[in-house]
């Protein structure tokens, strides 16, 4: 093992390098590849929908299709696309996140109206996930700030789940006759009960379920059902009387698809989400379907509760962003106050 060994090692890596690059650049006109950049809690549903869409697309066009997925906190995923992640389609938790991509020039303006139902294929809400038997007897938002209750929720700055939980908590005060000052006081109290702020919804679930930290998790409804299933009944869902209506949205990243020549496939893929067949699949994965007929069919799965929209507690998402989440806005003030104890 001397310089000959070293030379052999270098030759090996050179071969590795050339193989790697040839593997990456292999492309043919008879195949298409889509990159779907999404938020944290859609992994299972994307995998299921992709399988169905690929089958249909390949049968109809005779071309081969691969759909790659990337998942993370909604706002950080948006950030990656803005920084150059070559997404063909995005499905993100909040309008603001897709709008941020549109503002950077990658998505043509007016994208909300290019797909059915204002580009909202399904909606959801924020529920409470508690330990088996609900030992801390948590039923409504004020119960979260009782002595000795620990709340798990991700960071509103990086996560859609976090933002929605924040807004749900805010609205639980203001839509029931409370003032902004009372909401502020409630939220400061609430974040005092949060032991760790994860960056995404999935991280929060891992903290609550696997690391067994906290008494209640503020989770997407679908994530809550997954947690119940995964934990084999160690946790259960509690519906608060009032919560937020969460409306994830989808869009084609037009600037990227034009360069890659995937515009048509990308649009067909997103329209597929609105078809009854996929709407059923979505409902089976515990998201509330936007198709009224499918919604009727699955109505027993989704208990009714009062759901307010973002526009009921603000002038819209831009207003929400400047009032609550930009640097130095209400969330920053609240976390500073909460840290003071």
């Amino acid at each position, binding site marked *: *093992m*001397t*310089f000959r060994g*070293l030379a052999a*090692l*270098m030759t*090996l*890596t*050179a071969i*590795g*390098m050339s193989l*790697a*690059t040839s593997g*990456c650049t292999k492309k043919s006109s008879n195949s298409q590849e889509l*990159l779907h*950049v999404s938020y*944290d809690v859609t*992994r299972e549903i994307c995998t299921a929908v992709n399988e169905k869409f690929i089958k249909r697309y390949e049968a109809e066009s005779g071309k081969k299709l691969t759909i*790659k*997925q*990337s*998942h*993370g906190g909604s706002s950080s995923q948006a950030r*990656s696309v*803005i*920084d*150059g*992640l*070559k997404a063909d389609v995005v499905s993100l938790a909040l309008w603001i996140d897709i709008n941020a991509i549109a503002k*950077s020039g990658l998505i043509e303006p007016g994208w909300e109206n290019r797909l059915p139902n204002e580009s909202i294929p399904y909606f959801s809400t924020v529920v409470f996930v508690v330990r088996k038997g609900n030992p801390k007897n948590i039923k409504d938002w004020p119960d979260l700030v009782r002595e000795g209750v620990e709340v798990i929720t991700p960071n509103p700055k990086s996560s859609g789940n976090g933002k929605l939980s924040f807004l749900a908590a805010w609205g639980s005060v203001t839509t029931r006759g409370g003032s902004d000052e009372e909401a502020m006081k409630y939220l400061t109290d609430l974040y005092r009960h949060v032991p760790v702020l994860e960056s995404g919804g*999935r*991280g929060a*679930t*891992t903290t609550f*379920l*696997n690391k067994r930290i906290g008494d209640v998790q503020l989770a997407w409804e679908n994530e809550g059902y*997954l947690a119940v299933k*995964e934990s084999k009944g160690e946790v259960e869902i509690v519906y608060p009387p009032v919560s937020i209506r969460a409306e994830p949205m989808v869009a084609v990243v037009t600037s990227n698809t034009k360069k890659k020549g995937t515009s048509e496939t990308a649009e067909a893929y997103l329209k597929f989400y609105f078809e009854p067949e996929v709407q059923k699949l979505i409902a089976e994965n515990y998201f509330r379907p936007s198709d009224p007929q499918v919604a009727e069919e699955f109505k027993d799965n989704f208990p009714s509760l009062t759901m307010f929209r973002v526009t009921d507690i603000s002038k819209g998402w831009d207003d929400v962003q400047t009032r609550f989440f930009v640097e130095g806005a209400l969330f920053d003030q609240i976390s500073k106050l909460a840290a003071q104890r």
Partner: protein
Amino acid sequence: MTEPARRGFSRSREPAWLKWLLIGIVYLIVVVLIIVPLLQVFSIALSAGWNAFVQKALVDPDSLHAMWMTFVVSSISVTINIFFGMALAWAVARFQFPGRTLLISMVDLPFAISPVAVGLMFMLLFGRQGFFGSTLEEWGIEIVFSTPGLILATTFVTLPFIARELIPVMEAIGPDEELAAITLGASGWQMFWLVTIPNIRWALLYGVILCTARAMGEFGAVSVLSGKIAGSTETMPLRVDKLFHEHDEPGAFAVASILTLFALMTLIAKAALEHWVLASIKKPDANEL
């Protein structure tokens, strides 16, 4: 409390109980912090049975691809670092030039900077909105969210390993043998292959092993630049993190155990190397070609 300790010191020999207490504590720490978690990795990986383990770690195409990416990224990074480390050690050990001391301390910079900051730094340079972003896009070159970005980040993070091993060895050996070779008519390459390389080969190999181990495990910088595309830009550490977040614990630990096996292999290689070096120092002739 302080009384027995002081007496122990003044006697110049520690009492036996102290010795055994300290040894016991060290063993306890090793068992609790290293051995138990290590065994835990393998036991959780196998908790769903052998078939599931093979399925998750060795058949699943995304896991296989992650292994391939880890191999590609670490082998290219290590190769770059071999060239860089030798060039730097050579320059620093053989020549005096302005800024030499600064250069030596700059090599240590990657040890000090957090890998996440390294990732963000490259993002700000090569991202779409970054300093070189528009130029790269015009030329159709992808760095962030693709293999070159992962290699760049890993190379940066592992930069000091080989250079740091080589510099003291080359300084200690000194230029005498090399000068003798040149005086006797050897060409530059002959001197390099026949004199320099044999002298530094153990240090070089040692550096390569450490560098490989660190490159395979790199997570922070790579996670910023990866874009987390399954089956494309995911290395093994990223795959482990992802599977864990997908609530697939056996899967996460199956891939983690393969990664751990690779790490253990480098550790064994390192131990074997140390053994050989010791042996060759005892018998100087064994060092010959």
